[in-house]
């Protein structure tokens, strides 16, 4: 593409990566393992999350391979059940929930608010260690033979009818939950208390707002999941009966408590992604986000309403019809802020000056796929159509459109966007644009047929299925292999760029955030002097002015 670009790199012949930065400040394994620096912890998180993403991805590949044919020929039914359970557990709790907040959020939030670090650096490190411990427990579970409850741990199946490693998985999620709580807690405190002078709430970048909203959900939702899993473990070990209908307990109570976390968890996953999109769309159209306040408050609205919609996962499970009515209505209300965001992003482009670098391509992908994912969510939130569509491949397609089409696109967009800041080097533009396009095509190929499969009635979590569903499943599997390539490419060229990428300079995108006004990679203490925020967020005129001043002073 010979389209004009906003990328402005320093003169490559003279440019050097700054000698002193957070990566080089201290050396040795211990300096990493005992670090309090949010940027180093973010790096640790990035590595461990990528590791789990590829485990989860490999499991997804196995699922698609098994579903290539209607029979259970690649693996037996119970193996298949273990594979999709571990895929769900790893992707949800070890990739999606911590993905953007713990990596990108951890890296840029202190930079964006103009702080030297997160408020509680030791807690931040503790959160990473908890994540690693939980991850080891999950891997132990897999090595020891896996678990086949489905990631939803439906009682009484998980408590009394299965003999797999439910306890170790439950405890792994319990520990991972605390890792997530500490990350969220840290963000809230940082955003409240560590903003630099002049950084008012409405000067914060929208990425900060959306992470703030997600953190509220993390802090208030996750403990309920924790106690629920404790009860499941006790049910298995002691047999206490709260969820056991044979002893007078109520399995629906488990569903209530589980979804009280696990629905807000969906917003924990998607909100930070939305924040990334706000940053990227604004930067590459050189324009302030259209209706900043509306986008900011829609994040908070999603967080608040997100607590009151959990029972829409239980419409056909025998909750009261009247409760279903209320939860359905609230679900409709929570869909509105997402619609607002989509249109606001689209109108940010209006009268902008748009360029099409990789992060922007991923962001476009996000907007399209999230629109489909969000709208199909309304299909499931409406009580009537939910009866037909729930528990089929329609729901699988829906949440993959939101989580993979939405969140993963946003994650990749953000990784590419902040890669120059993180490493000081640019990723190769051409091949990454190719990867973005491949991902988009592969994704649609994989998951769009699943909407049709679901409407036709193919149930989820089936190792074998009626032969008439095969063609669409073949499409889906074929798409998954394209998608796999799309995900392998970034890890290859991003690793390559660590050594061979062009030197990025301070502000390759000419973005306005505080993080772009400092050296890349940043210093350990982020800012040589505490910055003073004297302009609004996304103020491109201010940036131009500053740059002119700089040129003038150098000249």
């Amino acid at each position, binding site marked *: 593409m010979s389209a*004009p670009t906003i990328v402005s790199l320093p003169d490559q012949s003279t440019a050097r990566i700054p000698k002193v930065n957070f990566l080089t400040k201290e050396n040795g394994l211990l300096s990493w393992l005992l670090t309090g620096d949010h940027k180093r912890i973010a790096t640790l998180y990035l590595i461990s999350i990528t590791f789990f993403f590829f485990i989860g991805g490999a499991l997804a590949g196995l699922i698609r391979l098994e579903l290539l044919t209607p029979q259970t020929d690649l693996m037996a039914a119970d193996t298949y059940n273990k594979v999709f359970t571990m895929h769900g557990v790893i992707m949800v709790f070890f990739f999606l929930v911590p993905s953007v907040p713990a990596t990108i959020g951890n890296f840029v939030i202190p930079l964006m608010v103009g702080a030297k670090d997160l408020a509680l650096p030791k807690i931040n490190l503790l959160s990473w260690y908890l994540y690693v411990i939980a991850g080891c427990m999950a891997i132990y579970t897999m090595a020891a033979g896996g678990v086949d409850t489905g990631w939803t741990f439906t009682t009484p*199946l998980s408590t009394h009818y299965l003999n797999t490693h439910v306890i170790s998985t439950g405890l792994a999620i319990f520990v991972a939950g605390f890792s997530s709580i500490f990350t969220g807690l840290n963000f809230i405190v940082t955003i409240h208390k560590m903003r630099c002078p002049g950084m008012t709430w409405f000067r914060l970048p929208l990425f900060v707002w959306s992470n703030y909203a997600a953190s509220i959900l993390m802090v208030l939702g996750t403990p309920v999941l924790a106690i629920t899993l404790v009860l499941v473990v006790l049910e298995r070990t002691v047999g206490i009966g709260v969820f056991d209908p044979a002893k007078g307990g109520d399995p629906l109570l488990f569903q209530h408590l589980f979804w009280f976390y696990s629905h807000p968890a969906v917003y924990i996953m998607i909100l930070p992604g939305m924040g990334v999109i706000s940053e990227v769309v604004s930067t590459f159209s050189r324009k302030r986000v259209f*209706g900043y306040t509306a986008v900011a408050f829609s994040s908070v609205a999603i967080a608040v309403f997100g607590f009151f919609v959990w029972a829409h996962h239980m419409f056909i*499970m025998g909750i009261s019809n009247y409760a279903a009515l209320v939860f359905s209505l609230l679900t409709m209300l929570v869909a509105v802020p997402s619609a607002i965001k989509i249109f606001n992003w689209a109108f940010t482009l209006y009268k902008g*000056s748009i360029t099409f670098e990789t992060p922007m391509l991923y962001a476009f992908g996000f*907007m399209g796929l999230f629109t489909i994912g969000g709208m199909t969510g309304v299909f499931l939130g*409406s009580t009537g159509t939910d009866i037909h569509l729930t528990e089929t491949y329609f729901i699988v397609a829906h949440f993959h459109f939101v989580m993979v089409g939405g969140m993963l696109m946003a994650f990749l967009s953000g990784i590419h966007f902040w890669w120059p800041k993180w490493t000081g080097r640019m990723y190769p533009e051409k091949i990454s644009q190719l990867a973005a396009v491949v991902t988009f095509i592969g994704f649609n190929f994989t998951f769009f047929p699943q909407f049709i499969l679901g409407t036709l*009635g193919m149930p989820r979590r089936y190792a074998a299925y009626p032969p008439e569903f*095969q063609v669409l499943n073949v499409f889906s599997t074929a798409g998954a292999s394209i998608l796999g390539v799309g995900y392998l490419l970034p890890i290859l060229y991003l690793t390559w760029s660590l050594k061979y990428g062009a030197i990025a300079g301070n502000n390759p995108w000419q973005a306005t955030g505080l993080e772009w006004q400092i050296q890349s990679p940043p210093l350990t203490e982020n800012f040589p002097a505490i910055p003073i925020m004297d302009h609004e967020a996304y103020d491109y005129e201010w940036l131009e002015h500053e740059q002119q001043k700089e040129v003038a002073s150098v000249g």
Partner: protein
Amino acid sequence: MNHISPVLWQFLVKWLTNFALFPPEASKIAPEMDALYFFMVLVSLVGLTLVVLLIVSFSILYSKKRHPVATQIEGSTLLEATWTIIPLGLFLVMFVWGALLYFRIYTPPANAMNIYVVGKQWMWKAEHPGGQHEINSLHLPTGRAVQLTLISQDVFHSFSIPAFRVKREAIPGRYTTVWFEPTTPGTYHLFCTQYCGTNHSQMIGDIVVMTPDDFKKWLASSTSGNSLAQDGERLFASLSCNACHNPGPDSRGPNLANVYGSKLTLSSGQTITADEAYLRQSILNPSQHITQGYAPIMPTYQGQISEEGVIALVEYLKNLNSDYRIQQTLNTTELLPESEGKQAPAGKAPATPVRGGKGEVKQ
């Protein structure tokens, strides 16, 4: 390539000739559900087109090449209000429309024919009131409202008939209901859609919809000799329920004739309608709802009667319209072999051997 492509080609031809975007509509509710579904698809398509159109046209019009300097715009309250209110309105329409369908599907009409369905790992058992038992299949007549009363013996299952657009979880320990009216004869898929363990994907079956005449023939040919209520009657007698529940003046338990559907006053002062769920609860957890004027002396039958047994008892009580019938069971008690019912093992309906395979085939 040579090896694979004929196979793929075969698939594609087969698929393209049978291509469907939605399953057959075989119940009265299905077209209505599809109407809402297509309305939603339409709204989604319009919304998606709008978003894609906006992105593409802005990308072309305002690319850096054409529009090198961006014009800063703060926002527009009017526009934002528009795209808040219009989606909200559309979503509310979908909410109301969906809720109307939901209430219809989960509120069975009074005159519906009731079929009991028991889910267990990994099979569906259907029990017709006439005593026909089926496994992994369900025969239904067209043109008649059918209510399913579902329960699970172990874990959550979900009874899903895509062609009817209905689905309901079978929950352990509680009855749930769903109803539909089949319209088109044919054989349709029955799926368990709630993940229920290793052989979840084998918990499938056939829904066979027949014309009323064929259905009558089928009923006649697959009867087990006893109706469900008769099974219940024998169980009632063999468990000696009538020792207390009889019309005598000094009976220790309430008389059960005509109890179904009546309003009972409980010892706690509450009133409650005796429906299937209430009858089931009263057999398994009798002391939870004590009828006013009686002592909580009834033993629990939890773990002693299988779900099928409870269903038979409930069906018997539902059809119990006169004291005379109870008197009769009282008299026939001695005639019954002692063993029946008392040692009814879990999972087996007493008195009636469950027929293996598809009930109708063997006649």
